[in-house]
């Protein structure tokens, strides 16, 4: 079976700066792969090479078996691209934009118009179809931009930071749209700085740092790599901390840390939620009061931190996404 996306040893310099330092990438058809990394890690450069916008200095890449350098036209028939900027003409209406791109995708006039209608409807833009883009909200522009990238019904879709700069509600909407596309069998390569976004959408995550792949796998695999679950307990009376730690030793899969001043105990466990039940029972038997107890799974933030030795850089604003999990944002 031909891989939807295959890259071998991609290297790209911008002057002195080595943007890509030998990237390998395999994406099976119908899968969503998330390229995760901070600014300057090479995400966008990778997407630009794969979408024929940029030539690699060395290395090869194929989309659906077609080489991006040797046969860019064949590649362009297969792909859709949504970049970091809404790549639409702000003086035209939504419909005019889609018809323009449809015509440039070489659809007939009739087909381009039908496809525009279909996409406007699908992305909930029918009402705004004949208004200039200037009056669109950020979320509407992104939806139109995504619609434009779907004009040719692409089998491989590149989404370069598709939700950067969107408010939580628009971001949620964007995620739903992307999930729909994936359920229809579209292969998606998504770049993001939102760890949460990769977690939510991608079946496989490739972590980039300084132009190299530093880890890859499913979100769960990456989290396991960092370490498993742990139970965090705050005891009511901090003098009980040491006693509690000793009592829970049998549950631990590693070294327990206790803090006698704050009364906080962290116990690495393997059993997950069964372990938490056992912990409550043990502490109850010992008559140790529990102020707070939680099972904590490593987040992709933890993964990133442990893999790179630094957190995702440049948290410009600390937006709390609507789903309530942790996330960071930043933009280029």
């Amino acid at each position, binding site marked *: 079976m031909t891989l939807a996306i295959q890259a071998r040893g991609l290297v790209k310099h*911008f002057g002195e*700066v080595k*943007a890509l330092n030998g990237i390998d990438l395999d994406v099976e058809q119908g899968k969503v792969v998330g390229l995760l990394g901070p*600014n*300057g*890690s090479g*995400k*966008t*450069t990778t997407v*630009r090479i794969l*979408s*024929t*916008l*940029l*030539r690699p200095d060395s290395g090869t890449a194929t989309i659906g078996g077609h080489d991006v350098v040797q046969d860019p*036209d064949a590649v*362009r*028939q297969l*792909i*859709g*691209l949504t*970049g*970091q*900027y*809404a*790549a*639409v*003409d702000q*003086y*035209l209406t939504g419909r*005019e934009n889609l018809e*323009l*791109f449809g*015509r*440039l*995708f*070489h*659809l*007939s006039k*009739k*087909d381009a118009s*039908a*496809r525009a209608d279909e996409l406007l409807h699908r992305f909930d833009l029918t009402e705004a179809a004949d208004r*200039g883009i200037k009056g669109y909200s950020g979320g509407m522009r992104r939806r139109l931009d995504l619609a*434009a*990238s779907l*004009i*040719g*019904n692409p089998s491989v879709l590149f989404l370069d930071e598709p939700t950067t700069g969107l408010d939580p509600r628009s971001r949620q909407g964007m995620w739903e749209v992307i999930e729909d596309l994936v359920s229809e069998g579209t292969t998606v390569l998504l770049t993001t700085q939102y760890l949460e976004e990769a977690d939510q959408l991608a079946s496989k995550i490739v972590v980039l740092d300084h132009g190299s792949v530093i880890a890859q796998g499913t979100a769960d695999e990456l989290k396991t790599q960092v370490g498993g679950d742990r139970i965090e307990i705050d005891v009511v009376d901090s003098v009980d901390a040491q006693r509690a730690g000793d009592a829970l030793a049998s549950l631990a899969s590693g070294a327990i840390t206790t803090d006698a001043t704050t009364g906080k105990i962290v116990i690495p466990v393997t059993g997950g939620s069964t372990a938490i039940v056992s912990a409550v029972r043990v502490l109850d038997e010992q008559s140790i009061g529990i102020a707070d107890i939680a099972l904590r799974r490593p987040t992709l933030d933890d993964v990133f931190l442990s893999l790179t030795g630094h957190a995702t850089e440049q948290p410009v604003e600390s937006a709390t996404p609507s789903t309530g999990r942790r996330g960071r944002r930043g933009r*280029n």
Partner: protein
Amino acid sequence: MTTQPTRRPALGWLFTDTLSVAKRHILKITRVPESLFFSLIQPVMFVLLFAFVFGGAINVGPNGAQSYREYLIPGIFAQTVMFAVAGITVGITEDSTKGIMDRFRSLPMRPGAVLAGHTLASLMQNVLVLVMLSITGLAVGWRIHNGAADALAAYLLLATFAYAMTWVGAWIGLHMPNSEVAGTAGLAWIFPLTFASNIFTPISTMPGWLQPIALWNPVSCLALACRELFGNPTPGLGTSFPEQHAVALAFGYALVIVAVFAPLAVRRFKSRSTGGAA
């Protein structure tokens, strides 16, 4: 689903794609009529300024101010054609920095069509400006003396030259980092080129070292060619090659400019990597 692209030879697609892109820019002109208005107003201002303010001080023929106005209008035509460069320079830079160029470049369209469509739309806008300018000229006393065929040749020459210049503008636009810089850079080189020419004053009034430069200046050739074709005054016409073969030379300049700058611009467009390294 209706998404099967139609099959056709590459050259056919270049043509259709060019028209699609041109349509985009023409729609844009109708959405921002102010830009058309100001591109019309500027040459008209120059006509009024030189016809009524400076004109009395420049002597080009026996009929004084009337002669000067007939001398002036073809010069303004040439100047307008040159200034056409600025608009497309800014437009191309704006597209390049806003991501829509990336969309074009990721589509299976003919890459040359992005620029060809833009220059085509620009040409149409320039033709409109030339029509407007002709009406203004007629109103201040400019006349066509040599009949329809020569007049048509003059307009064809102006349109060809305008088209050639938009390719220079496109090429410059592809090198500019943002539209502010493009706005200045697009005009900076036009000023010396248009003013070191015969468009406002006869070359014989200039210092000796400047005369050969002004004489061979494509803008001078264009203005002189138009004066000859329209039958307007050509005071102090000498025997040098550019003065004797103005029409042929002006067409030649236009063709050379297209032949050089169209491939350069398309090549730049294809290889250009917009955006950052992130």
